[in-house]
């Protein structure tokens, strides 16, 4: 058994209203950054999995991403090995 640490990034799916992103974007003119747009806010979850192989560990993370960490109806997710 070894341990692998992953980061799961969860983002609102394209086309889904993202009020948090909109709120952040509304502050940008005050920062002389009015040229910045397309702000989207998601979340990042880091976790460690003990498993026999990286593939096995990744499969566990992908199951958790689908069942708990993201809501596939409104969010996309990506897994990255740290």
């Amino acid at each position, binding site marked *: 058994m070894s341990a692998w640490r992953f980061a799961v990034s969860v983002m609102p799916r394209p086309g*889904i*209203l993202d*009020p*948090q992103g*909109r*709120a952040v974007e509304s502050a940008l003119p005050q920062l002389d950054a009015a040229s910045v747009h397309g702000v989207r806010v998601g*979340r990042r979850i880091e976790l460690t999995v003990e498993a026999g192989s990286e593939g096995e560990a990744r499969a566990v993370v992908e199951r958790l991403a689908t069942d*708990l*960490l993201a*809501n596939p*109806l*409104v969010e996309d997710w990506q897994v990255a090995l740290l």
Partner: protein
Amino acid sequence: MKVGVVVFPGSNCDRDALHAARLAGAEAELLWHDDPDLRGADAVILPGGFAHGDYLRSGAIARFSPIMGAVREHAARGGLVLGICNGFQVLTEAGLLPGALLRNASLRFEHGWVDVLAERTDTPFTAHVPAGGVLRMPIAHGEGCYFLPDDELDALESRGQVLFRYAASSNRNGSLRDVAGVISERGNVAGLMPHPERAAERLLGSDDGMLLMRSLVESVARTGVAA
């Protein structure tokens, strides 16, 4: 006739729901989320609040509470389940109702009285609501913006699963097509963002919520759907 009101860590409308169920003539008991047993409840209410602090997404963690297995089995047997506000969010996360409740489009926590139209009065949750009647109930939520992809929303409407809609100017969270509450295809699981249990007595500003509570209690008493 017994109503079970589930208490998650962070529920805060559980006692109001208990009170309203008793006012409607039911025996009612609080059920702890960690106990996978409905204790003989004939109908289950998932109350409002902030289960598990609403961390990750509203309802996402509550969905995996041990009692949810029993709630799922109860629903599969045709038993009645009503989710109010946070309870509605739990039911969508659990896949017992379609859709998702997103952060309010207004960027604000929305609270206050709203007018809600019952689209159907032939369900166990709305049998007492006069046809075309407007229900005045409070809302209090940060994540109540109902979402379902357009084509699925079309299908939902054509199957008559939109149970409640916000009346004109009452849609303060940006819900698609003014959806305030939905019902399962089988008609025994329903959820809504407004709070019927907070509109249970005139003293509170409205007792319209009792139309829903009485519908629920009397439907079970009449049909005797057992847990």
